[in-house]
């Protein structure tokens, strides 16, 4: 194994693990803000209880997101120093803006959000929650702008020393061609990820006690999200795909498994086993001309295949092909459960349909899997470049020996599986407990509140 492959594996591993947490916490922060707003508006205890229930989970997810995120800000330099030197003048400022406008906002208000309700009062506390939720979104904005620029680089000049330098307009760089689509698609994905976790937890508790008011409320809210957002997401994904076809057609060829060009309408390959050696998809089940219909909105539109691309410029096909099918499959399953929930509502059986609840539990991690698959499609599909078409991955890595990269990779794998494995176990443990009428505040362990008005008393007093 050479140092490049190891460095790629390390980045893929650390970023995939990291991505799980913000994918969940972006949506969860917004969900908490909605719950707190509803509680402030209606005064209903069920919202306050749900807020406290999910706040405990949020604290654990957020902590893991922070520590795995700090790692990412160093990974560019430790393993991809040549890329950092070359692309730094363009993407560095965008990442600095992420720190300035998002990380500090989240971190600065997180303490108040988690521990401060009996110190600052309800309104200011709500502001803190909003600030954290806004921070998670701003963070997604900047980092996806950076990622999109690497996919569709525009607005740059090449310096005498080989660096990418910013052109006259930063707006051109920030709002590069793939960014709006990627931002919309990814943020919706984060909302769906959270909705399906919340829905699964609600469904799990409904299966045990269909009268639990907290479980009913969260299940209902999650199913509304599934019914409304899943179709929008499929539409957004289609738009994003068309954008990719325009700017990164080779990626789409890999997604579709189109090794050969199709001058008279390309088939949509539903399943099959891409065989890069033989340049074909084995055992393909395909719908004739459907790919041209989807991508070009015309049955006979010609579509170029990987045979038009030099061997050295092709991404790995198998991974992209499969990850894409996993993502799309999950998207349609999400749409399916959303529709089922509408039927259930219409039949007034949303809380009394164990089969639906079982399905929802099964779909709990589906958002996380879909997000990771989508990430793999877009990142592996960008190969063999770091800055698409301009800077090759092989020319981006740090001058490190393979043993150095291998040992750090091993250390990351061991530590991440241990630490985050336990963290995920704690999360499941928290989710296993049903939401109670008198949900304790975050971190129930150190209850040493003798003589002091504890946060729940204030919340309950207000919501009574």
């Amino acid at each position, binding site marked *: 194994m050479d140092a490049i492959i190891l460095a790629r594996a390390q980045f893929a591993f650390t970023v995939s693990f990291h991505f799980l947490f913000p994918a969940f916490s972006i949506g969860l922060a917004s969900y908490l803000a909605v719950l707190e707003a509803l509680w402030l508006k209606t005064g209903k205890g069920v919202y306050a209880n749900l807020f406290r229930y999910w706040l405990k989970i949020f604290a654990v997810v957020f902590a893991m997101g922070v520590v795995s*995120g700090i790692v990412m800000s160093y990974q560019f*330099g430790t393993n991809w120093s040549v890329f950092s*030197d070359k692309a730094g003048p363009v993407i560095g400022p965008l990442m600095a803006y992420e*720190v300035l406008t998002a990380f500090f906002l989240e*971190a600065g208000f997180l303490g108040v959000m988690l521990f401060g309700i009996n*110190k600052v009062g309800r309104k200011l506390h709500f502001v803190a929650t909003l600030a954290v939720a806004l921070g998670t979104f701003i963070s997604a904005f900047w980092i996806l702008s950076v990622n999109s620029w690497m996919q569709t680089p525009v607005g740059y000049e090449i310096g005498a020393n080989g660096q990418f*330098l910013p052109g006259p307009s930063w707006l051109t760089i920030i709002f590069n061609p793939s960014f709006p689509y990627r931002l919309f698609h990814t943020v919706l994905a984060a909302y769906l990820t959270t909705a399906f976790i919340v829905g699964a937890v609600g469904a799990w508790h409904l299966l045990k006690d269909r009268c639990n008011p907290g479980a009913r409320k969260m299940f209902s809210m999650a199913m509304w999200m599934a019914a409304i957002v899943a179709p929008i997401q499929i539409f957004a994904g289609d738009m994003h795909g068309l954008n990719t076809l325009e700017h990164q057609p080779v990626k789409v060829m890999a997604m579709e498994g189109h090794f050969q060009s199709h001058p008279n309408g390309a088939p949509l390959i539903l399943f099959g086993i891409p065989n890069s050696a033989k340049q074909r998809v084995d055992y393909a089940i395909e719908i004739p001309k459907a790919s041209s219909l989807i991508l070009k909105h015309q049955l006979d539109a010609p579509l170029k295949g990987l045979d038009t691309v030099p061997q050295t410029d092709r991404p790995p096909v198998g991974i992209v092909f499969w990850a894409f099918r996993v993502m799309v499959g999950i998207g349609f399953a999400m749409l399916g459960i959303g529709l089922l929930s509408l039927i259930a509502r219409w039949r007034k059986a949303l809380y009394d349909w164990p089969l639906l609840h079982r399905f929802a539990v099964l779909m709990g991690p589906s958002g996380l899997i879909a997000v990771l698959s989508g990430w793999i499609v877009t990142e592996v599909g960008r190969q063999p470049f770091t800055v698409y078409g301009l800077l090759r991955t092989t020319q981006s890595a740090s001058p*490190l020996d393979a043993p150095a990269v291998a040992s750090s990779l091993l250390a990351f794998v061991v530590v991440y599986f241990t630490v985050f494995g336990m*963290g995920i176990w704690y999360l499941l443990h928290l989710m296993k407990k049903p939401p109670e009428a008198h949900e304790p505040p975050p*971190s129930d362990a150190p209850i040493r509140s003798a003589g002091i008005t504890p946060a729940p008393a204030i919340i309950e007093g207000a919501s009574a």
Partner: protein
Amino acid sequence: MIDLTVIWACIIGFAIIAYVVMDGFDLGIGILFPFFKVGQDRDTAMNSIAPVWDGNETWLVMGVGGLFAAFPLAYAIILPALYAPMIAMLLGLVFRGVAFEFRWRDPAHRAFWDRAFTTGSVIATFAQGVALGALLQGITVDGRSYAGGWWEWLSPFSLLTGVGLLVGYALLGACWLNWKTEGGLQRQTVTYAGRLGIGLLIMIGIISLATLRLEAQYYQRWLSFPGVVATAQVPLATLIVTFLFYRSLRLKRDAQPFFWALALFGLCLVGLGVSIWPDVVPARVTIWEAAAPVRSQLFMLVGASIMVPVILAYTAWSYWVFRGKIGTEGYH
């Protein structure tokens, strides 16, 4: 000569100072953690930093993110050169960061997460110290990249700076707890602060003398006439601040020792500046050689000049919300 590059060097310098000021004490509490009694004392120590540690650590990201954006070449040279200490620091921060939440979630394994908190804090601190030492002793640079091996950072000097930072952060942690706690825990930390102060002074002395021998540039900066008249003020001020630190401890002040300890750190950073200015990779690459183009630096400066004051304001507010002695109630 004040230009954008100098301003950015100052902003990153500020981020490093802010990081040391804020994360130093909470890493220090991690270092001292095993010496506190299991139960109330440990919970109080943990609760004194739980609402702020995340914001504190963000300055570390700000420092490295700023370096990436304003001095990409330096970022690209330094991080591969400090590969092992940086990875160790990150893994240490992972352990201590999650321990804040996990120790409350899992009482059966609280002892494990307490150890993880300490081990992570010690590793992260030591690695930061080693990184500083490795930078000061000089790294091998060829063209636009690091050209040394992956063990180049390891030397008696870098190990010494690692230990020095452990002592320093522990001192800050002790002083913070002296400020924020009462009773037995406070008395315990006052004792620690007294001993650690002496330890830090010794470490500063040894490291300063050792630094002079590293590069001719450092020796000249400090000891050639007439510069020595100015530079001699730094060790002098260090002695004065040390005296004030011990005086405030003896007078049983709560907050003052913490700020005098910070002043000691400030003087160390001034000393560091005297040695390396205007290099961003000491004795190898100047800030101007590593600088990003004006467009990059200017674009960020707009953001930084608006956002940094805002950040400082709400950070201050957050500290204000959780002001005063922790007492026994805890707000975790």
